[in-house]
């Protein structure tokens, strides 16, 4: 429960901090931290407009997408506290729950019949597919290391002892940061600020969504960020200490993640589209390094 409420709370801040960071780096004052959430609240009170060519898929997809995200949040543990739902192999369920939401977004964007949205959908599908091996090799390695199969058990049995295990932890945190960037369609993969449909990935898929649906999708991205932030902070939470230490570390890591994303988006140009698959695939090779590190720790290879 504590993890779920913390994720919800940090999701309210996350987009605002990114935007504020970018503004400060480019010498502007920028809107308040809560501006994105205010915009979302405004959208949620509006009605949606549907095109004549779209079917019921287009109408249910945003709600489905949002509910998969919300459900996925329930799986995230918090230090010694398991998530609201926890069972053996829940990280597989978690990954495919997110994939389900994404699947509906993709078919709903194809449903609109727009040529832009089709392009966006194809890009999104490709990149999500390329991210998948990295996530599973990473989680698989930790399952092997701890001998457990659920998020809660893996994280609560994760003890950093040797140098290699620190390296493994740092690499894992890095991989998760990049996965969070890709899953949320941020720089350097996608430019969320652009107005150019031809270069968009995620943004172009939701061009036709409006009002309540758009609000859900936008809040969904904030939630997704906070969720990945929570997973990353789980690597660093101290076990057996007072709970407020953990809360402080959690908040610190969420803040750091948002600032890092803001900084990357300020000082880098977006990748050329055909460099993206290569970049994303390199995550898998880092995950393989983690796998190798785990094998070393366990003494499976000499």
């Amino acid at each position: 429960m504590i993890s779920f409420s913390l994720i919800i709370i940090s999701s309210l801040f996350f987009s605002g901090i990114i935007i504020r960071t970018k503004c400060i780096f480019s010498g502007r004052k920028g809107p308040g931290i809560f501006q994105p959430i205010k915009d979302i609240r405004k959208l949620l009170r509006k009605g949606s407009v549907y095109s004549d060519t779209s079917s019921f898929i287009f109408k249910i997809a945003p709600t489905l997408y949002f509910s998969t995200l919300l459900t996925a949040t329930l799986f995230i543990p918090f230090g010694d506290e398991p998530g609201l739902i926890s069972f053996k192999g829940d990280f597989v369920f978690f990954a495919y729950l997110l994939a389900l939401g994404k699947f509906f977004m993709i078919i709903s964007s194809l449903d609109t019949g727009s040529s832009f949205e089709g392009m966006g959908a194809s890009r999104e599908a490709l990149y999500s597919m390329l991210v998948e091996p990295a996530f599973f090799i990473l989680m698989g390695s930790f399952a092997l290391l701890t001998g457990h199969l659920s998020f809660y058990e893996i994280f609560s049995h994760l003890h950093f002892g040797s140098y290699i295990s620190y390296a493994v932890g740092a690499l894992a945190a890095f991989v998760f940061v990049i996965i969070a960037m890709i899953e949320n369609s941020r720089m350097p993969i996608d430019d969320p600020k652009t107005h150019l449909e031809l270069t968009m990935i995620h943004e172009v898929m939701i061009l036709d969504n409006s009002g309540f649906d758009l609000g859900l999708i936008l809040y969904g991205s904030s939630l997704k960020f906070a969720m990945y932030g929570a997973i990353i902070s789980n690597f660093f939470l101290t076990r057996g200490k007072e709970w407020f230490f953990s809360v402080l570390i959690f908040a610190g890591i969420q803040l750091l993640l948002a600032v890092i994303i803001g900084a990357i988006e300020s000082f880098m140009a977006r990748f050329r589209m055909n460099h993206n698959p290569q970049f994303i695939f390199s995550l898998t090779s880092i995950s393989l390094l983690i796998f190798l590190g785990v094998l070393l720790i366990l003494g499976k290879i000499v």
Partner: protein
Amino acid sequence: MTRSIIIKNNQTIPLREIPVLGYDEFLEYNTSLLREHYNHCVNYFGFPQRNEMQLICCIANDSEHEIFVSSSVIDANTTQYSFTKHHLSFHIFERELAEISGINYCDHPWLKPVRFPADRKNKNSQIINYPFYNSHSEELHEVGVGPIHAGVIEPGHFRFICNGEQILHLEIQLGFQHRGIERLFQEKKKLLQRTTLAENIAGDTVAGHSTAFANLWESLSGFKADDDLQFSRTLALELERIAVHTGNLSAICTDIGYQLGSAVFGRLRTPIINFFQNWCGNRLAKGLIRAGKNNFPFTYNLREQLTQLINQFKPDFKEMYNEFKNLPSAMARLEKTGIVTQEQARSIGAVGMSAKMSGISRDIRTSHPHDFYKNINHEPILKKHGDVYSRTQIRKEEILQSIKYIRGMMENIPEENKNRNRLKSPSPESFCISLVEGWRGEICHCAVTDEQGELLYYKVKDPSMHNWLALALAVRNNEISDFPVCNKSFDLSYCGHDL
């Protein structure tokens, strides 16, 4: 027998002195001139003359500072052989002629409508039934962008045929704005109205088009522009170049998602256009350039302001550009993107930056100098790769070059002539051509007057007319997601094309 009359930039000649050739000879003569690389066609148009059509073709010789003007009289309802068959750079002129006057060309490769003007000959030719190229393929897909632009700038329709992410073909269709600028020039009789029209041909080239008009009008009226008039026109042109190029660099950064560059270059552009506000009361320099007078003389106080402004601008600009240039992720987007080869640029008759980027030295400031450029020994900046990065580099170097020119010019400000001659009315039955190097490239205005000295025909040619095709060629085999940055690096005018 001479087949053409040789004139200089901004020279007025009696209409009857232009040799009238038979169409076959006219065709043979002009297309043969273009076999030499230093010649290019600056304008080719037709106007009604006693139930017939008089065609005038102006070919500029860039090395000898001369313009060859020849003409032919034909019946508009006949079928003719096209110039384009011999040299592609005539394509846009002949498409325009065919659209307006109904001349039928039997061997023109692609008589695509240019801009669907209200006075077109064939009223059935409409954008709604225009047949775009299409692929009829299972594997390829088509993407239509516009006419409403994502950034709501100006209307234009882009039709891509793609293989996945790769562009195989791009067809650009403009002509969504129907202002009828050229006809308004004939209808509006007051000089002020016409000047205002010239200022509004393209909002980003106010100094360019209004200088072209003022020079042309003064030449037609036999007025010799004083030094102070020439000075302020040249200064305005160079300032406009700095402002627009800086703004463009900002836009290129935006399109590749580089926020720092986008913010800083945007910030740097503002003080330059604000200087125009201080000078003439308009940030786009509207009202500054007038034929035969100058309402806003350049004072020593303004010189002080501008010197200070440039001293602040230059180090900041250089620092930001170096930051940008040394950023690998930015260079990866610019280099080898949107290449136009020299051969392509030459064949379509590209002008301005689109010519200079692939090593073609085509710059009116050198080849047909007007105003103060006669005193400045201008060297065009040339690049050879023809990619987005070449166009970016040209912008940067032209900005620094313009700063140098402005500093040099300001050392010696000409005195304002207090008792200027009054403008006379234009000389009757004359022809005049005015070429100006705007920031985008060569601007050409031509005028023909009737027996009373009234405008019989006014022809405007913005550099975008030639260069839109360069964009279509540049994006071939590029990724569709690189189209915006290619487009921005050419930065062509929709309204300059649509008129």
